[in-house]
């Protein structure tokens, strides 16, 4: 009622004003450097009287005689122009990158930097990292304080690790929620992992399907006030990816970009060559003649390579007044610096926006279709004592000839042999469709319906032929894995938005409903005993056999398999009733001797109700309150719904009279809220579930059937994990924001930690998901500074710097969980990290190395007071962890006329890396057994045949500064008359140099070496990690 009264009052006031003013009609045209600008907003200053420019940039408006027009358009400087009695006005808007910055995409809406109450950072295309970018998150690596994006590997398409404000969860998936154009992704992998014969290969990055060049901006929501709108999935932060639209395009622009990149391994190990190796074997008491195979091979060079990659993108965009469109096509082929690793991506994308019914109805559609073809070498983090192809190449005897058919008759992996006779390929097709309809019921009230559909289908085929040597059960037999994974994610959302400006305040209310459905299904199959040695034929045979067998089965089934001990295809069925070992004969061609297959199919649902109120008073005091209720099918009736409230307050002090004019921005922000996390929990962990246990082919080509087993025990009390987070921040700007600074202080406490822990015995699974009584505290400070040193017509120079400090601690936990498996010869069961109260996550726990004694044997500090320093009995927390305390980035940008240079440095400090590669491979035990080692071992004084167990001997400081990126660009001066409207040439170098004391290849590394079954992930362990490439990219961008 009050609102209605207020409205009437305002209306009367406006009429009165109009009555007194002398109205006149004005026509005009708005353009930018490239031509007319359709859709620009023209408003009479101080009124709500306004219009938009049409297709040709023209407008007509009735205004008062002394009116001033405010002309604005996203991405351009807002221009004010006084009418001064003129009847026609022509305005050219200039592009303003700063203005573009100001709009920040937040959950279910946008805000501006000035009006944001939460801790939100947005990075737009102009600030993205250049060079070879295979995945969107690499665009913003190091650009934002408190966002630690780890290069988990230098492999093309490798998985990601994005930590916002430390690690809140203790599960493998600590990644934030990714939202692409309003569709929250499932967060799960979209491609199955293959088996290299030595262990599973790393999973691919689920964001690979997005073409980085299609991305306009990436917003990072850091505090609870910003992420609470995503409720039970917001605890690790939210990354909102917005793709480019045709909005700023005008009358049709083609853009074309192409680049060629050359990559080399940035660093390599200092291994022994032939003669050094033979003399080292003698030095360590071996018989050099017994291990000399006559050749001189640099195995590191055999396995790694220099490569050239290309990336090509073509886009067309147009803004035609009532809407705009952008369509793109991209093709990227990236080769890794390890043989047989590459990524091919073909993407198409279209964004369409169309307005109807006097611009009241806006329809938007966007679609991405992508095909990613991955190939990987036999790489595996869990390859065990021999290492994967990289570990094998480091330890390979340099006197072995570089021949695929050579064998020493021993037990080591032969790099040339394994490379030649193995193949691991993954194809992933994915499409993401998103359509929305937005209707403006009244100037204040808008409703929107948003639908999303995300579908991916992926197949991995990895085979090792019978030509391989020294691999038991594969040698002379052949082995292959054929895995299929399909995911389908459906989204339906409806929101209502009410925006109202009052005299001295404004109100923005959002309410919404969201339903999301995540289905994953697929089949894991393996075959052993191949007739062919051709890798391609092996893959075809395996696929044909699995599909052939499957097609002969009627009815529902969980598993089907056969071996040389089977008289028919054996089928295990669950529905409609359990049938174990149903033998149905061989109605298909058996191209492999033994085959097993197991199917899965499950669906998770998420239903949510949410609301947000933004209220701003006098443009000085900003209030936000958010609430989301999330219901998830991952939890039972006891805890199906979770409620996630948050609140925030901001005070724009610079609007106060007592603040001087030279302070252009001074804003204080306070926020607090509760968010949840359920990632990594997976399907059906709160109920009791039965399935047939896994089956596999035996090395003698038989297959043993399996029985029904309990795969999940009911935990009715299971619930999401909760993070309470508090944030206080100050934004500062001086001299019309020529200098800006932003400081945030935060603290978050995660409780009800979702973790796989041992239930009370007897239990079937020694680990089961539960909400563990523990608190994980993250607290820290983030600082971002930017200064425009020079702002002249011809020369600009600016610098931006960010730094974050984070402190992590586990509290109130009664147990101790060992994790961080260390692999290598004699290192079964070895680990380096422990999860325990009073210490950070990923804290190192091991014996303290006390040097080599006179006889060259390692000694250790006695901790338990028994007088003997024992590497196993005297383990302690050594005061180091794998989470960086400080992370920082520095960007410098210089433009002189048409030339520009941008450089970017990144650094991480206060963390340690466990050099598992050195521990597992470069020991005297290795050289004694005729495995190659690094130069420094020879002079280390280590005795022959010493044991090499986990200790601080192999724990090193990881601190580094990396010259991550440098781009030199030249904008070719064009008249605009010719075919090309603009053209830019650039050369970009990535990973140009690294300053670190770390003795391995690169300290920014995490190899998932194993968690000893606990589910607590590893971090900071370097086990023959994929070498980081150094890349030089030459690029051309043109528009026409």
């Amino acid at each position, binding site marked *: 009622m009050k609102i209605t009264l207020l409205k009437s009052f305002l209306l009367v006031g406006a009429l009165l004003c109009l009555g007194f003013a002398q109205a006149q009609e004005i026509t005009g045209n708005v353009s930018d450097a490239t031509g007319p600008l359709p859709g620009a907003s023209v408003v009479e200053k101080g009124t709500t009287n306004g219009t938009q420019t049409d297709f040709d940039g023209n407008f007509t408006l009735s205004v008062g005689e002394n009116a001033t027009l405010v002309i604005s358009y996203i991405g351009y400087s807002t221009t004010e122009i006084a009418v001064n009695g003129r009847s026609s006005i022509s305005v050219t808007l200039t592009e303003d990158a700063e203005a573009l910055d100001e709009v920040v995409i937040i959950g279910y809406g946008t805000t501006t930097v000035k009006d944001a109450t939460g801790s939100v950072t947005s990075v737009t295309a102009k600030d993205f990292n250049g060079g070879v970018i295979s995945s969107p998150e690499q665009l913003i690596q190091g650009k934002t304080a408190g966002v630690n994006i780890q290069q988990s590997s230098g492999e093309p398409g490798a998985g990601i690790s994005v930590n916002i404000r430390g690690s809140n969860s203790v599960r493998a998936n600590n990644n934030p929620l990714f939202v692409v154009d309003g569709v929250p992704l499932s967060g799960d992998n979209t491609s199955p992992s293959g088996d290299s014969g030595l262990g599973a290969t790393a999973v691919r990055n689920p964001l690979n399907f997005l073409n980085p060049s299609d991305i306009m901006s990436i917003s990072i929501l850091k505090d609870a006030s910003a992420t609470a709108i995503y409720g039970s999935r917001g605890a690790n932060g939210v990354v909102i990816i917005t793709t480019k639209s045709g909005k700023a395009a005008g009358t049709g622009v083609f853009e074309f970009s192409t680049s060629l990149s050359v990559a080399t391994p940035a660093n390599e190990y200092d291994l022994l060559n032939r003669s050094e190796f033979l003399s080292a074997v003698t030095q360590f008491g071996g018989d050099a003649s017994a291990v000399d195979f006559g050749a001189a091979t640099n195995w590191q060079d055999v396995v790694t390579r220099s490569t050239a990659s290309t990336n090509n993108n073509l886009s067309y965009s147009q803004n035609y007044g009532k809407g705009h469109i952008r369509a793109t096509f991209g093709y990227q082929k990236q080769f890794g610096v390890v043989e047989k690793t590459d990524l091919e991506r073909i993407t198409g994308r279209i964004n369409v926006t169309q307005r109807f019914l006097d611009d009241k109805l806006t329809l938007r559609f966007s679609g991405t279709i992508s095909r990613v073809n991955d190939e990987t070498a036999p790489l595996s983090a869990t390859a065990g004592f021999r290492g994967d192809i990289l570990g094998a190449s480091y330890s390979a005897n340099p006197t072995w000839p570089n021949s695929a058919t050579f064998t020493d008759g*021993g037990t080591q992996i032969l790099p040339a042999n394994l490379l030649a006779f193995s193949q691991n390929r993954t194809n992933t097709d994915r499409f993401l469709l998103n359509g929305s309809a937005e209707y403006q019921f009244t100037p204040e009230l808008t409703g929107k319906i948003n639908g999303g559909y995300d579908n991916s289908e992926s197949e991995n085929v990895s085979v090792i032929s019978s030509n391989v040597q020294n691999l038991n059960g594969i040698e002379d037999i052949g082995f292959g894995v054929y895995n299929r994974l399909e995911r389908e994610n459906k989204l339906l959302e409806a929101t209502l938005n009410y925006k109202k400006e009052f005299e001295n305040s404004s109100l923005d209310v959002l309410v919404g409903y969201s339903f999301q459905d995540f289905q994953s299904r697929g089949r894991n199959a393996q075959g052993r005993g191949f007739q062919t040695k051709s890798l391609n034929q092996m893959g075809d045979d395996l696929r044909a056999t699995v599909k052939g067998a499957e097609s002969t089965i009627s009815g529902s089934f969980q598993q089907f398999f056969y071996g040389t001990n089977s008289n028919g295809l054996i089928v295990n069925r669950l529905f409609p009733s359990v049938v174990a070992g149903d033998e149905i004969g061989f109605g298909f061609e058996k191209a492999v001797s033994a085959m097993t297959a197991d199917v899965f199919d499950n669906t998770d649902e998420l239903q949510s109700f949410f609301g947000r109120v933004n209220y701003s008073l006098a443009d000085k005091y900003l209030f936000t309150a958010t609430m989301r209720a999330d219901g998830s099918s991952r939890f039972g009736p006891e805890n199906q719904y979770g409620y996630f409230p948050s609140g925030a307050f901001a005070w724009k002090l610079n609007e106060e009279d007592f603040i001087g004019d030279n302070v252009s921005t001074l804003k204080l922000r306070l926020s607090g809220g509760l968010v949840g996390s359920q990632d990594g929990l997976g399907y059906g962990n709160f109920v009791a579930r039965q399935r047939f246990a896994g089956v596999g082919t035996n090395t003698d080509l038989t297959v043993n059937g399996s029985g029904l087993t309990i795969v999940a025990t009911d935990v009715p009390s299971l619930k999401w994990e909760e993070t309470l987070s508090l944030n206080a921040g100050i934004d500062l700007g001086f001299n019309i924001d020529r200098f800006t600074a932003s400081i945030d202080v935060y603290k978050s406490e995660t409780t009800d930690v979702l973790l796989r822990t041992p239930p*009370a015995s007897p*239990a079937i699974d020694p680990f089961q998901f539960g909400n563990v009584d523990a608190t994980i505290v993250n607290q820290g400070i983030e600082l971002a500074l930017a200064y425009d040193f020079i702002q002249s017509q011809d020369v600009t120079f600016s610098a931006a710097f960010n730094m974050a400090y984070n402190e992590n601690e586990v509290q109130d936990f009664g147990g101790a969980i060992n994790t961080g498996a260390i692999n290598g010869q004699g290192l079964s069961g070895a680990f380096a990290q422990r999860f325990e109260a009073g210490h950070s996550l990923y804290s190192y726990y091991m014996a303290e190395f006390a040097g080599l004694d006179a006889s060259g044997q390692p000694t250790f500090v006695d901790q338990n007071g028994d007088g003997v320093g024992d590497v196993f009995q005297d383990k302690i927390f050594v005061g180091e962890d794998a989470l960086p305390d400080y992370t920082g980035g520095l960007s410098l940008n210089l433009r002189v006329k048409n030339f520009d240079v941008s450089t970017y440095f990144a650094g991480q400090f206060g963390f340690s890396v466990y050099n598992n590669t050195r521990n597992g491979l470069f*020991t005297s035990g290795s050289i004694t057994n005729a495995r190659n080692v690094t130069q420094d071992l020879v002079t280390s004084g280590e005795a022959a045949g010493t044991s090499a167990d986990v200790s601080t001997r192999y724990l090193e400081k990881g601190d580094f500064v990396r010259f991550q990126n440098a781009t030199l660009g030249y904008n070719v001066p064009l008249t605009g008359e010719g075919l090309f409207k603009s053209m830019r040439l650039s050369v970009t170098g990535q990973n140009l140099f690294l300053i670190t004391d770390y003795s391995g290849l690169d300290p920014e590394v995490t190899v998932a070496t194993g968690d000893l079954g606990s589910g607590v992930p590893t971090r900071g362990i370097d086990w023959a990690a994929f070498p980081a490439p150094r890349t030089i990219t030459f690029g051309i961008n043109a528009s026409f």
Partner: protein
Amino acid sequence: MALSSCTDLEIEESDSIISEGFQGLADASSTVDQLYIRLRDHYGNQSNRFALSEVTSDAAIVPTRGTDWGDNGEWSSLHQHLWTPEHVQVINTWNEFNGSQLIASQVLDSRSNPSATNTGDASFIRAFSMYTILDYFGQVPFRDVTLPSSSVPEILTGDAAVSLILADLDVAIANLPSVSAGSGDANGRASKAAARFLKAKVLLNKQVFNGSGSADGADMTAVISLVDEIAGEGYDLQAGYFELFRDSPDNETIMWVSSEVGNRIFNGLHYNSTSEGGGGWNGFATLAEYYDLYEGDPNSNRVALDETPLDGQEERRGGVPSAGLPFTSRPGTTDEGGFELSSNVGNGFLAGQQYALDGTPLQDRAGAPLTFKRDFLDGTGSPSIINNDETTGIRVIKYAPRFGAFARHEIFFRYADAHLMKAEAMMRSGGDPTAMVNELRTIRGATPLGTVSEQDLLDERGRELFAEAWRRNDLIRFGQYTRDWLFKAPASINNDTYKLFPIPASQLLANPALIQNPGY
């Protein structure tokens, strides 16, 4: 706050059978199959149950050879009696057998509708699982599957635990089939004989479990009659010791499990011992004092190419041939160019120089002669469990690789053990076991003993049952588990703490009724 829902958010039964809480198994027979698969996996591994029984005794040691077998100290700490509640094999063993116990309870639940045979199998496996946990840990957590899964299991110790196990075994004996000796595949599952064997084992060890320290006469009588009942189904001692450890039927095998025997073979062999299976893993060895339990030359253990002992050793000590054993007409073997692949490895206890198939003396990887030595010395020549070279320690082979390294046939219960249990029961109830022990020794080609003392009986068990995972159990029952042996930590000698393994630390948090065993 009640929310009107557009979906009920219930998960669908799409790829697994779902119930809220345990409501019975969907197919008891299939789950019983899985229980046997678990038994196979748990028994066949060199870690966990096998290592806890052998490596913690005087029968086995896994020294660190260069970097090999360091493995976070899990092997050395077992042999030295320095394990802690975090020892991964202690935790795994606890988890494995408790898990099988719970699955068996689920089979036995009436809602799972088990058949009589299902009931017999599940009762047997539950009894074996609880027996193993009681033997190792002194306390058995027991979960009533009719209660919610969040309920805390009760803890059974001493006579209460023994009663529960014996009750299960009586149900097993009643429901399991009678399988006569030499039945081949049928001996691959539990039978009345297997259940009686286990019952005899439990009764014999009852004095340890309940802490009474002396055998109960009625129990010993029961042991004797159980062994007699087993014999009544045709089980008997059989000549040809190493032929017993093949996948062909014989009268001694009461029950076997389908574990691949390669694990037992490759553990001890050197990388260069055989080309089969990619060579050995060069780990497990035995102490010289254990090897010296056998008669024969202490420094040499050779056999002729027809396997005739050359060093005065008895049959069970086996021996090393000077070349591959010629193919000739040995039954059940396959031809490999005149030699059986890996027939150069020999049987039993491998000491001294080892030879290739063609008679060439083998070398280790550093080029030194491959001679397996009695002692464990480090690079400086001092006795040590770490920093050994590749040749220290006498190696043990029970399943000859030439009979098929990947044969899925590992002896679980054997009549010779039952025979010795009966002898022991007689001794513990005042009788004389000499005749029974000598009956066995005669079949094995060993010199009969004058009179058999308690020590002799323990030694005979050691000789007959080496590498069959009974050594710890025997040493404890005979009061010798805490005595000194090579490399045992000084503080652990005569320390009763190590007679039981510690309860895993996480379990003490999960179940407040569990009390850590004394000393840990």
